[in-house]
């Protein structure tokens, strides 16, 4: 039975098809970078950086357009930092609880619930921000409108938390029980074991997931648009409205003339977002690799 030649052709076809797919993907990567950078570069040629780093955004001004993106940067940072501040501690505690104290049988169900939470489409979260959280904030703080950066931060925190919980819970789960038992056998309590030993295994995943969440929060568009009022001003407190980098893209892109300066500046903002998320992702990857606990 000589089948080695037929298996060789099978092999060749398989390899080439896979290669083609990989090449196509590589091409996509290249195109993304190219098509975002090109208009952005054009914008940079026309608008000096100093003008971008400015607090006034007025693309429609007939006499003097101004392209200050600080309000959006500020809006994005506000919502993102509020979201992280709320989500990070809750996620850590919830993941400890779900892996260390919830009976094993319930755990896959809660995994599913957290997964579901992560999968709720952002418009629905925006809808909730608009109809529930916003009015609640207005009521509590006595505001006319609850559409504030706080609203955006809260809704974002709910959106990023489940992924953090799953990531951390996975990391906790992956730890061989012998480590917890090792600590217990030395006289530690369960909570001490989780905090002093298990946490050390999870720490890289923890920091990486904070960074990833930062990236996700800063990139989130629809929910935030629906939550924070979209006013191109620098919010001075969590109870003021604002607008984010993503928000301005979603809202203004459709109204611009293709190839106009406005269009190009929006691409520049897009590129900025791209670069900042790339940096954040790269850093998180770096953390994971540098600090991965090597267990033999």
């Amino acid at each position, binding site marked *: 039975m000589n089948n080695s030649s037929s298996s060789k052709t099978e092999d060749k076809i398989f390899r080439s098809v896979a290669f083609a797919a990989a090449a196509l993907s590589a091409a996509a990567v290249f195109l993304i970078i190219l098509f975002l950078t090109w208009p952005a570069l054009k914008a940079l040629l026309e608008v000096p950086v100093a003008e971008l780093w400015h607090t006034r955004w007025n693309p429609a001004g007939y006499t003097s357009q101004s392209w200050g993106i600080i309000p959006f940067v500020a809006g994005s940072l506000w919502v993102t930092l509020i979201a992280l501040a709320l989500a990070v501690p809750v996620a850590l505690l919830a993941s400890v609880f779900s892996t260390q104290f919830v009976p094993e049988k319930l755990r896959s169900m809660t995994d599913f619930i957290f997964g579901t939470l992560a999968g709720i489409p952002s418009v629905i979260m925006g809808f909730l921000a608009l109809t529930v959280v916003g009015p609640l904030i207005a009521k509590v703080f006595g505001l006319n409108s609850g559409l504030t950066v706080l609203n955006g931060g809260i809704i974002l925190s709910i959106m990023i938390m489940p992924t953090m919980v799953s990531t951390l819970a996975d990391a906790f789960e992956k730890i061989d029980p*012998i480590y917890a038992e090792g*600590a*217990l*056998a*030395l*006289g530690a309590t369960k909570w001490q074991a989780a905090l002093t*030993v298990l946490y050390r295994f999870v720490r890289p995943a923890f920091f990486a997931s904070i960074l990833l969440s930062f990236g996700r929060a800063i990139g989130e568009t629809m929910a935030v648009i629906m939550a924070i009022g979209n006013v191109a001003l620098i919010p001075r407190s969590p109870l003021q409205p604002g607008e984010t980098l993503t928000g301005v893209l979603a809202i203004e892109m459709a109204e611009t003339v293709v190839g106009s300066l406005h269009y190009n500046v929006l691409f520049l903002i897009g590129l900025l977002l791209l670069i900042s998320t790339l940096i954040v992702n790269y850093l998180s990857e770096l953390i994971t690799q540098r600090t991965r*606990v090597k*267990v*033999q």
Partner: protein
Amino acid sequence: MALKIEATNVSAYFGDKQVLYDINLGINEAAVTAIIGPSGCGKTTFLRTLNRLNDLSPNFKMVGRITLDGEDIYAMNPVDLRRRVGMVFQKPNPFPMSIFDNVAYGLRLRQIKDREFIRSKVEHALRSAGLWDEVSNRLNHSAFELSGGQQQRLCIARAIAVDPEVLLMDEPTSALDPAATARIEELILSLKEEYTIVLVTHNMYQAARVSDYTAFFLNGYLAEYDMTDNIFTKPRDERTQRYVTGRFG
């Protein structure tokens, strides 16, 4: 020779399933007692009742009485019990910290702050575990940089740093290669002067090599308990005979 631990009529259950039946066994002080028997016979379960580690399983139940120096271990705080009864596991489980911090861990758990004291304890424990010479110049390196055998010796050092009286070892060499195994066995022999050691092992020959007493468990029962010399040259129980001569099934 004094009895350090005494198990009287100990039965154990996981849920409805009984895994230990009426065990009566005295562990002699300053000696190595090996527990052997086929897979699933309850060796590990028995060992883990001695420091109440089984209590972590929600469906575990024990009846009978276990005493440490005559005191019922269920009358003690488990944290105190576990300080007195250290444990070494099947796979080396160094914590993700420096070598030093691993050994100091148990001391710090007890709120000991005196740095000099901790230092001297750590050194002493590492020396006793025969690891000092290999690690003294890199105490602040990660414990995971050590080889498997070194890690296991580190775990032993960690256990003895808090001055336990008893050391429980659950197949401490089953994840190691023969050379590392030989070192651990030498270590066990040298530790038995100071500690009462209970050693669960799959490897009958290991029990033969290092233990003074051997308990043979079978289906949750204690089938035979005797001096190791007798177990391996003239066991009284027919089943022990069959087991040690490898004719078990």
